[in-house]
């Protein structure tokens, strides 16, 4: 057998194989994912609108649990206190003047201009064309500068060895992680787990740019805000009711 491969053979083979596997009816079903063959573009911008008036405390707890279940964090054995990861958390705030109490879920805000991406020395912190901010754990050296830079305390560092990760959500010791807006679900046309866990209109997920999307239309109608608007980060996660 020819052990030497040159570039042309390599290209020829791969093309042939791709065509071959796609046409023959083997046990592998490529067609299911046909929609995902194309790179994501900046014609879309995924976002989320959280209406704190419509969310109960148990709604928010459900969101946190759904995220843990979906992405497999929270069962670390050795990490204690603030060492435990938290991709999404329930926050309770009280207005200093009126005493009004609000509860909200807090996670990566998927900024348009993410400080974590700016500071990352190795390009591991990155933003996809469609606005989802991720950590490329292949490149992450665990310097934690992104955690210093994030205005939302959204990122966690994995403090211990992990095993039995979710198939779609690789996670590992010594790297930084955060909410991925359930990118693996979004790419399949599904909603993030937290949004799905709330049956009311408390959380709306969708394409911010699409004039026909529910999130776009709702944002046009109601008053909403971004957390730390002063930083001009133009977040993908918006809140109303606080």
């Amino acid at each position, binding site marked *: *057998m*020819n*052990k030497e*491969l040159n570039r042309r*053979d*390599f290209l020829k*083979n791969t093309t*042939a*194989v*791709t065509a*071959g*596997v796609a046409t*023959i009816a*083997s*046990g*592998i079903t*490529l067609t299911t*994912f046909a929609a*995902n*063959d*194309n*790179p*994501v573009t900046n014609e879309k911008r995924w976002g989320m609108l959280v209406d704190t008036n419509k969310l109960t405390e148990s709604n928010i707890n459900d969101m946190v649990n759904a995220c843990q279940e979906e992405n497999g964090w929270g069962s670390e054995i050795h990490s204690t206190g603030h060492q435990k990861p938290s991709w999404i958390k329930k926050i309770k705030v009280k207005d200093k003047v009126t005493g009004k109490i609000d509860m909200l879920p807090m996670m990566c805000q998927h900024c348009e201009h993410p400080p974590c991406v700016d500071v990352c020395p190795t390009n591991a912190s*990155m933003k*996809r*064309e*469609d606005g989802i901010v*991720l950590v*490329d*754990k*292949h490149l992450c050296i665990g310097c934690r500068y992104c955690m210093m830079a994030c205005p939302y305390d959204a990122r966690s560092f994995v403090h211990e060895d*992990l*095993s*039995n*990760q*979710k*198939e779609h959500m*690789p*996670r*590992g*010791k*010594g*790297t930084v992680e955060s909410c991925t807006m359930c*990118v*693996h679900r979004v*790419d*399949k046309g599904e909603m993030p787990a937290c949004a799905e866990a709330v049956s009311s209109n408390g959380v709306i997920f969708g394409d911010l740019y699409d004039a026909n999307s529910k999130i776009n239309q709702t944002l046009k109608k109601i008053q909403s805000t971004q957390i730390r608007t002063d930083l001009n980060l133009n977040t993908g996660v918006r809140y109303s009711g606080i």
Partner: protein
Amino acid sequence: MRHLLIIFLALAFTSVFAHADKHVNLGDRATELKDEGKSRDIHPSLAEIRKMHPEFLLHKRDKTLRQGVRTQRDSLKECVNCHSSTKNDEYVPINAPDQFCSTCHQKVGTSLDCFSCHRTTPKEGL
């Protein structure tokens, strides 16, 4: 000095090739496919996949992670799905000694970093 080099190279080559054609542990699904004669549909050239799989995986990982291109071809999940084997009805981690990935990687002395983050067995309930 030259003699030593020749001996060293000879040893290196024999160890690679002596090993190359007998996979003790191909994995459950892969063995099935091989027995059904379908393995060439997936890996048309053994030499290619043996030599180029790091490049395939690297290329695929960037496309998936950074561009959202989610195809099965060259997906690490699919490697694990086919090449994992079971013991007492439970999957053995693919990077465990004597399993598909580690047999070769140990032999050629290259470390394997995929599984410090990636799941080492096929997904739950497969």
